[in-house]
């Protein structure tokens, strides 16, 4: 394991590469999550109706926003001073108007249209639509309506813990972040193998290694193993930051996200190793690393959604491992399991096999 241990030492000395590969994703994780998640709207509600329905409705809104007590008198000031983002006024007779199928308008006021109030407005609109639908089915019978409402609350309580809107935003931020995690892994795992192996060759240490009982297979295996370890440490760190620091939304299982990132990392390593077989010196390897990683990340949808690119670019993206990594992560974050990304994982594995084969397709002489 001499080569493996030696590589760990050399990682520590590659401060620039490591620093960039870790800092780029971290900076973008912070950017992606800033302005989301922690922001909750405060809504002032004046309930002139005071029925079971309106009380339930306030309860549901509390799942989405902080509810403040306001009165008819102070509601304007509260709104202008910014103590509340929005004021809702429920007029008397609101409940019966819904049950009778002639819904009254729910009065909502806000000073400026913000993301927060718009999101909440949309949520309440959706909720009221559901109410009207249930009223229609209850055909004006109060009792059946409230039965249906109880059922509804039970079913939706769990889902409503987080707003549909907030969750979507959280998913989006998670995906943006994961795009940059992929970019960071790509830089690190292409730069280091190509740099370290080429350095060995440049300094003739490579030739010298094989005057010892070390075999070429073992040399390659130990190199790859050291990069896999580095990839794991990086992925763990990034996932820990995302989960612990930003409550990122990874879909059903964070483990699945880890699996996809690891498989992707192995593809990056295979590219790095293949590169090391081609380039002549460390200067070339540095230049090629940047020439390869950034376009791969851009084309593969690490920085923006694949769908916003022209269709021919999307077709082109299918030839990049980054796109398949991003596609798999997108599916996972939006609720799919590992079995739903088998195609993506297979394509990634095929990339790795191809690049490892390219790397081993070298002349038989060690000394050259």
């Amino acid at each position, binding site marked *: 394991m001499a080569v493996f241990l030696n590589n760990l030492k050399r990682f520590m000395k590659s401060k620039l590469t490591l620093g960039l590969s870790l800092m780029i994703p971290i900076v973008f994780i912070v950017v992606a999550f800033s302005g989301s998640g922690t922001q909750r709207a405060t809504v002032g509600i004046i309930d002139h109706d005071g029925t079971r329905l309106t009380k339930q409705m306030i309860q549901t809104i509390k799942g989405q926003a902080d509810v403040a007590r306001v009165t008819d008198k102070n509601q304007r000031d509260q709104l202008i001073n910014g103590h509340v983002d929005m004021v809702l006024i429920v007029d008397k007779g609101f409940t019966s108007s819904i049950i009778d199928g002639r819904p009254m308008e729910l009065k909502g006021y806000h000073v400026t249209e913000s993301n927060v109030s718009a999101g909440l407005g949309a949520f309440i609109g959706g909720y009221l639509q559901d109410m009207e639908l249930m009223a229609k089915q209850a055909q004006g019978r109060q009792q059946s309506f409230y039965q249906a409402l109880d059922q509804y609350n039970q079913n939706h309580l769990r889902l409503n813990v987080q707003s549909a809107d907030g969750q979507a935003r959280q998913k989006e931020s998670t995906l943006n972040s994961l795009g940059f995690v992929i970019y960071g892994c790509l830089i690190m795992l292409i730069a280091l193998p190509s740099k370290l192996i080429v350095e060995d060759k440049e*300094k*003739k*240490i490579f*030739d010298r290694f*094989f*005057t*010892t*009982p070390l*075999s070429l297979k073992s040399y390659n295996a130990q190199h790859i193993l050291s990069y896999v370890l580095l990839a794991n440490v990086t992925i763990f760190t990034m996932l820990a930051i995302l989960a612990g620091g930003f409550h990122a939304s990874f879909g059903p299982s964070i483990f699945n996200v880890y699996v996809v990132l690891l498989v992707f990392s192995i593809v990056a390593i295979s590219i790095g190793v293949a590169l090391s077989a081609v380039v002549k010196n460390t200067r070339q390897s540095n230049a090629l690393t940047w020439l390869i990683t950034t376009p791969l990340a851009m084309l593969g949808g690490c920085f923006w959604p694949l769908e916003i690119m022209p269709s021919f670019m999307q077709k082109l993206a299918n030839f990049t491992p980054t796109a398949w990594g991003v596609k798999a992560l997108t599916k996972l974050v939006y609720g799919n399991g590992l079995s739903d990304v088998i195609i993506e994982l297979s394509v990634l594995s095929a990339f790795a096999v191809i690049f490892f084969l390219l790397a081993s397709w070298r002349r038989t002489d060690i*000394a050259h």
Partner: protein
Amino acid sequence: MIIEVSDLVKRYKDNLAIDHLSLQVKEGEIFGLLGPNGAGKTTLTNTILGLTAVDQGTIKIFGQELRKNEREIKRHVGLVPQDIAVYEDLSALENVLLFGRLYGLSRKALKEGVDDALEFTGLTHLQNKRPSQFSGGMKRRLNIACALVHKPKLIIMDEPTVGIDPQSRNYILESVKKLNSMGCTVIYISHYMEEVESICSQIAIVDKGRIIAKGTKEELSQLIVDDNVLLVDIESPNYSIIDTLKSLPSVKDAMIDDHTVRIVSADKNMNEALSAFLKKGVTVTKVSTNTPTLEDVFLTLTGRALREGSN
């Protein structure tokens, strides 16, 4: 025999780097491999260690065929490569440790091997310094230490003294003798004939991928001892005298270096050669003879000086 190479051929495209070469090295020797740049010395070492595939021929080390027992054989061979091959940003100690681990030494053997190798090369007090802070001589010594850590039975040194100061060179030559007295067989490769002359018990002269002469220093000198070497110092360099000399039946070879004309004669009688100077009107300032050196041997065998190179 510790090494037996027979009928080895290695081609680089049209270039015959090793040309049907056979070589035997006995255990306990300091075996000198002398030859100009490009003679094929490094290529030969690379084939002996299995780094370069050969086109033809067999290599046996410790009586075993290289290809069948490569790992086991390599465990007992150390190579000091021609190019300094150590990590510049690891300390001397870390470099030697790395090679010790590559040879799969146990914890105890590793510690002992590392300490001994550093002490042997006089680097103990510098062990925590990095080679990037070393002088050329210190780097060469570290290069050697990395090849000694596993206490090899056979050590091959490929031009270990290139580009260093005289003290470091002497230190290294002395170390080679000490290693040998400790029971290690050494193959010493060089294009400096003085080095080879001073430490090697057996010498092979390599040129253009072939061994053109082999034996002890004395045996090699015997090859041309029948020839008489005459050194004639002349007042001003004159190249036409060489052609005149070469055309004489009694002169085997002639060359000029600065003010000194070197004549190798097949005949004890040098009258003919000397009278050529008179006839040409070249002023002679000094006439002397010398015992042949390996340089003379090489010159006689190839018609070229060692430092001129093979190509």
